[in-house]
């Protein structure tokens, strides 16, 4: 029965989004036997100066819970459970929910205290048969969504012991102002904030592990390229790498000490490692082909990268000191832009399909398992994992203009995060 339901779910997803592939292999990012926790959102009462806020709170919370992949959202009205009188739910309501297989209920209220919005959230746990959490968040109405995300993260943490991702951010490139500049938005596509305003070209942002900085390629003089670093909280910016030629695809090691990047300052594109403390520069690759797009394993011991030393671009692995190089991908004549998952189990990348579309694939680091995640028209690029390893952000031209999308690591639940008629690309998901 469950299998049938799952298949129907996949079919609906695929039909709804149009461009995802039907998943025939289920890639659970954590535990293969994990059963989602049935949860019901009773709703939020009360009003603030912001019209519709209570409904907005419930909508944001439900979207967060759905994306967490920990919870299974139950349709309460369909089960005959009243959701509109939830400020102080009665025992009978809990009993009714538990009898309908719901493990967790969430509700709350929204109020105003002086200039602040106050959000109270309560959690009822059917296993304990008691209200196990009550949280009050207060702040200006501009951070209401963040308060809800915080409640969602509280729930994820409570039921998994792992931090949720509802308050993570995604850095990206947008052409909103006419030039390509860096932006940072909430993980659900809200509240984009502009980070650079050079008026020309900034590319491929990548987070420092402590989330305070972005590194990126900056065309400061239009003819020369540097790798710059910007501190998000202050806007302070400086140049880390200023060599001749192309200086692209910077990536910090998980401990934040080393920056690996591709530079063509001595001819063709090669990978170099900069020790950010000692400023010592070490060459990692040395051949007449192009090496680029490094991605660190979560342990920091290995690096995946793109190289065309065998002809077309393919994914290779090497130790962090440049030794022990071996080819990882053999299927297809174009595999590039690797992204090592936070748990180390997969390397996402762009793969050219037999029909010459550029789609997302994942491959295991031993090369034994491989799967295509997206299908359909358009160029998919720049896969970037969510820190919980359950999602990928990427750019795609599937709907014309390049936009940023999020997809589950098993290829389901495709969701577009950016809108409007302008170019968006190079998503980079923040660490936790």
């Amino acid at each position, binding site marked *: 029965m469950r299998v049938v339901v799952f298949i129907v779910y996949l079919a609906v997803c695929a039909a709804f989004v149009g461009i995802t592939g039907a998943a025939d292999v289920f890639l659970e990012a954590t535990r293969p036997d994990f059963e989602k926790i049935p949860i019901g959102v009773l709703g939020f009462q009360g009003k603030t100066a912001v019209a519709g806020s209570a409904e907005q709170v419930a909508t944001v919370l439900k979207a967060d819970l759905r994306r967490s992949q920990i919870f299974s959202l139950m349709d309460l009205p369909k089960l005959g459970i009243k959701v509109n009188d939830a400020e102080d739910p009665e025992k009978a309501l809990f009993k009714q929910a538990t009898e309908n297989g719901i493990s967790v209920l969430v509700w709350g209220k929204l109020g105003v205290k002086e200039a602040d919005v106050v959000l109270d959230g309560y959690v009822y746990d059917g296993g304990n048969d008691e209200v196990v959490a009550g949280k009050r968040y207060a702040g200006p109405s501009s951070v209401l969504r963040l308060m809800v995300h915080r409640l969602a993260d509280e729930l994820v943490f409570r039921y998994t012991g792992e931090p949720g991702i509802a308050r993570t951010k995604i850095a990206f490139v947008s052409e909103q102002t006419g030039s390509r500049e860096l932006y940072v938005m909430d993980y659900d596509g809200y509240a984009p904030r502009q*980070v650079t*305003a050079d008026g020309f070209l900034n590319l491929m942002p990548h987070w*420092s592990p402590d989330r305070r900085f972005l590194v990126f390629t900056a065309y400061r003089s239009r003819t020369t390229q540097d790798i710059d670093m910007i501190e998000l909280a202050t806007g302070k910016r400086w140049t880390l790498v200023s060599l001749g030629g192309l200086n692209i695809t910077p990536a910090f090691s998980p401990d934040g000490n080393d920056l690996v990047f591709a530079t063509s300052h001595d001819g063709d594109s090669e990978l170099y490692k900069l020790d950010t403390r000692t400023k010592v520069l070490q060459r990692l690759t040395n051949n007449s082909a192009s090496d680029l797009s490094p991605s660190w394993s979560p342990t920091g011991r290995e690096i995946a990268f793109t190289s065309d030393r065998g002809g077309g671009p393919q994914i290779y692995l090497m130790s962090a000191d440049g030794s022990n190089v071996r080819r990882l991908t053999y299927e297809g004549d174009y595999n590039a832009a690797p992204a090592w998952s936070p748990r180390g189990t997969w390397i996402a990348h762009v793969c050219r399909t037999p029909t010459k579309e550029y789609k997302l694939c994942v491959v295991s680091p031993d090369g034994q398992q491989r799967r295509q995640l997206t299908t359909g028209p358009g160029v998919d690029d720049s896969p970037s994992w969510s820190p919980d390893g359950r999602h990928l952000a990427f750019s795609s031209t599937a709907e014309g203009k390049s936009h940023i999308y999020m997809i589950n690591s098993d290829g389901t639940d495709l969701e577009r995060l950016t809108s409007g008629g302008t170019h968006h690309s190079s998503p980079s998901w923040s660490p936790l």
Partner: protein
Amino acid sequence: MHTRYVTACLMGAVSLMLLIGPACSKKEIQATSGSKSSERPMAKTDRADSGTAARPEPGISEQDLLKPGKGPSAENLPGDIKVAKVQPSDSTSRIAEDIRREQVATAASGLKDVYFAFDSWNITEEARQALTADAEWIKANPTSMLKIEGHCDERGTQAYNLVLGEKRAKAVRNYLAELGVVANRLAVVSYGKERPFCKERDESCYQQNRRGHIVVRTK
């Protein structure tokens, strides 16, 4: 339904940003309460004082409504990422003016661009003819400085196209050097697929974008 809601809200946020963004000329930086904003120029990864430790979001206070000690709390979770308002700069108009001057000078020179096959940086026979004429102009204008831009179509990854664009630009520079142009008059830059000439998705457009674009520098 949900998507429409998200889209509507996002568009609202974006238009709000557009309204206040360019008009804002104050060099205002948001306060950085909560996280230690040190002067250290390097990424810091000591999780104990920058990562998972209590780092309350500015503007949000949190309290327990039940008796304390009941299970986990978001206080154990990382705080929020703060983003300072972007520093306005005058570079946008300056760059636009530089580009315009270059375009005028380049158009006046009559220099010809060259085009490439898919995923290739080989100089074709047609390109050789164009570059032969270009070399004559360059030699006849010995004070001019030039820039060769390598461009690509939208197929493939951003990063690999930047590398490909550089190979194209260098192939053009090398061929001009073979024709006797002094190589240090020729700067090389790759824009990959980041500055396309044509934004449609068909082969004629792709062909336009697989280009070695020769520019007369004006400064």
